[in-house]
């Protein structure tokens, strides 16, 4: 059994995993790229080893180096976190081949779920409903896809076979616009996954994204930890998640029915460790399997909070061969948790990523608040990795209390040095539709805007005018002061002497 864990990741998730190891009394090993030398996950770890230059392919994607480091420092296990190598079956296999434990599923499950077309085929055989789309397996050429597209009907989605995180995904409204979109999707998929294969899926309009957290041990026990609502997305990237889902809410029968299907989907690939089954749910409660994420999710804290289960610690216990300490009947969701992903991007400038040094930061604290972050004052946000800088999670007895608490927390949260999407979340918390839970995966793009309409101007324009004027005034005065000093033809000391003599 291992006592030392290497964390093959960076940022907030590496810190999160190190924390779990600490609590379990395990030693931690961090790996880092040149630009991450002073990152939090390096400072927090018991041991740290450099992987190489900043670009991911030269550092966090160097599976060979990571395994060599693990063996050299005698770490018994590797936790991949999310992203990077987390869903690479070949990496998981190499870890096992080197006699190390992989904190995650078996390589066979990763590849079965990683190829999205294969995954659809596998789970539908197990009786799990899937979104209508391209059937079967294998690479399809553009003209094949164009022929199938007409049968599926528009609108539809082009997706990357090796996909995830919205990359290589495009929406198509008509046959005419399809060829350039296929090219763009293939280009992005090739760049992100090294695999340009794509497939088609019907676009379900007005559907919600609801997912179930799965835990499975080595003794054949598989349970779910309830639902998460992840419909608040932008460009297919989740921005805010909740547990439970307002759509399921008190309908326990529906929850358990979906949960049982999720468990069946996981069992279909012999799943082990923590994973997530994603569903699309239509208004009439029809639901379809979307995909399985064979790893720890970014949004795992909301489930942790309502169930009281530390998912990362469970992952490690499972990897150490322990049996799950609870059965399905023991799992209950209590209260309501919401997570906002705080990203270094400018919501007022088309959400373009923002880089720079964090010069000032005030974290929200107080009752019912959790912040998972990997940054600190003085840390440089670089363009090499994703823009997530922290996850702000709150808990409330009810959804209403959680929203009000999130509103307060967002107001307290100050980050200076990079632009963040905090104002976006603040607007979201004020949105009546969001409060009413009337959201679907198109909500942010179709029915939400940061632009202000003529009727509802924000409440303090005169205060903003005063603030801008005073800052401008100070700047002008300072500039004028500098010029005045230069205008004196003599040194300031002489000038001061004369001035003092005059005053006598």
């Amino acid at each position, binding site marked *: 059994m291992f006592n030392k864990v290497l964390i093959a990741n960076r940022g907030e998730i590496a810190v999160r995993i190190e924390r779990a190891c600490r609590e379990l009394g395990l030693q931690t090993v961090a790996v880092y790229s040149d630009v991450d030398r002073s990152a939090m996950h390096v400072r927090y770890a018991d041991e740290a080893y450099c992987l190489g230059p900043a670009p991911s392919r030269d550092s966090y994607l160097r599976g060979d180096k990571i395994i060599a480091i693990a063996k050299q420092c005698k770490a018994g296990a590797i936790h991949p976190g999310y992203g990077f190598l987390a869903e690479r079956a070949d990496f998981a296999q190499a870890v096992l081949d080197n006699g190390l434990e992989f904190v995650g599923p078996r390589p066979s499950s990763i590849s079965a779920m990683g190829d999205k077309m294969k995954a659809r085929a596998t789970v539908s055989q197990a009786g799990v409903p899937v979104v209508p789309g391209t059937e079967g397996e294998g690479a399809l050429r553009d003209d094949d896809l164009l022929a199938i597209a007409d049968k599926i009907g528009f609108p539809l989605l082009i997706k990357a076979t090796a996909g995830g995180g919205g*990359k290589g995904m495009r929406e198509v409204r008509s046959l005419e616009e399809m060829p350039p979109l296929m090219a763009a999707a293939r*280009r*992005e998929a090739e*760049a*992100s996954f090294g695999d340009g294969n794509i497939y088609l899926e019907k676009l379900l309009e007005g559907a919600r994204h609801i997912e179930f957290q799965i835990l499975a041990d080595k003794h054949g026990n598989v349970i779910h930890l309830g639902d998460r609502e992840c419909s608040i997305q932008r460009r297919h990237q989740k921005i805010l998640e909740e547990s439970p889902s307002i759509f399921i809410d008190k309908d326990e029968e529906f929850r358990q029915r979906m949960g049982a299907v999720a468990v069946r989907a996981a069992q279909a690939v012999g799943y082990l460790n923590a994973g997530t089954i994603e569903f699309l749910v239509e208004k009439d409660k029809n639901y379809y399997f979307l995909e399985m994420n064979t790893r720890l999710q970014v949004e795992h804290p909301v489930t942790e909070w309502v169930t009281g289960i530390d998912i990362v610690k469970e992952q490690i216990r499972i990897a150490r061969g322990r049996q799950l300490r609870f059965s399905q009947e023991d799992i209950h969701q209590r209260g309501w948790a919401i997570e906002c992903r705080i990203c*270094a991007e400018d919501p*007022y*400038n*088309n959400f*373009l*990523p*923002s*880089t720079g040094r964090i*010069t*000032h930061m005030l974290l929200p604290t107080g009752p019912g608040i959790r912040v998972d972050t990997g940054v600190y004052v003085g840390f440089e946000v670089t*363009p*090499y*990795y*994703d*823009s997530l800088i922290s996850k702000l999670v709150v808990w409330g007895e009810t959804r209403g209390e959680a929203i009000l608490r999130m509103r307060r927390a*967002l*107001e307290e949260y*100050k980050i*200076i040095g990079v632009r963040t999407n*905090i*104002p976006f979340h*603040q*607007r979201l918390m*004020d949105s009546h539709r969001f409060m009413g839970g009337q959201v679907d995966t198109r909500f942010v793009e179709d029915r939400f805007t*940061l632009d*202000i309409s003529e009727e509802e*101007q*924000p*409440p*303090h*324009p*005169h*205060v*903003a*005018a*005063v*603030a*801008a*004027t*005073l*800052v*401008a*005034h100070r700047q*002008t005065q300072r500039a004028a002061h500098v010029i005045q000093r230069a205008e004196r033809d003599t040194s300031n000391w002489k000038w001061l002497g004369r001035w003092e003599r005059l005053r006598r």
Partner: protein
Amino acid sequence: MKYITTVNGREYTIDILDESHLSVDGVVYELDFERVGNQPVYSLVLDGHSFEAHVYTDEEQWQVLLRGDMYRAVVEDERERRLRSQLEGAPAERGVFNLKAPMPGLVIAIPVGEGQPVEKGDVLLILESMKMQNELRSPHAGKISRVRVAPGERVEQKQTLLSVV
């Protein structure tokens, strides 16, 4: 000192009377204004009401982030105002837009060519940064004048990529 400040399309005449008083459109307020920790964060107490604002500037305007709302402000003193009103009416120079990289990144594609006419909102360049492909668009109609970079090239923040005239 008197300023004319425009916020979200509305004009305010702001007169700074002394260290602790100013008037907005003739209404006098008592004021305490402090910069917090040498950051672009300002604490403003206006007649006993406390506000905290983040104030940023770009070339033309001020951006004030206040209680989760973004206000865009243009501040002019009386002299600047006079100058501008004289300039208006004179034939306006046609805007040249220099597309600058909003962040460091990798140029993925440039779907436009030199001399090509573009409409407002057309994609000029695709820049990859933080693992996302970002489409940079034209703010107005015009013609592509100079393409200074090529696909596959790494660019620095604020580097000029191409121009629209």
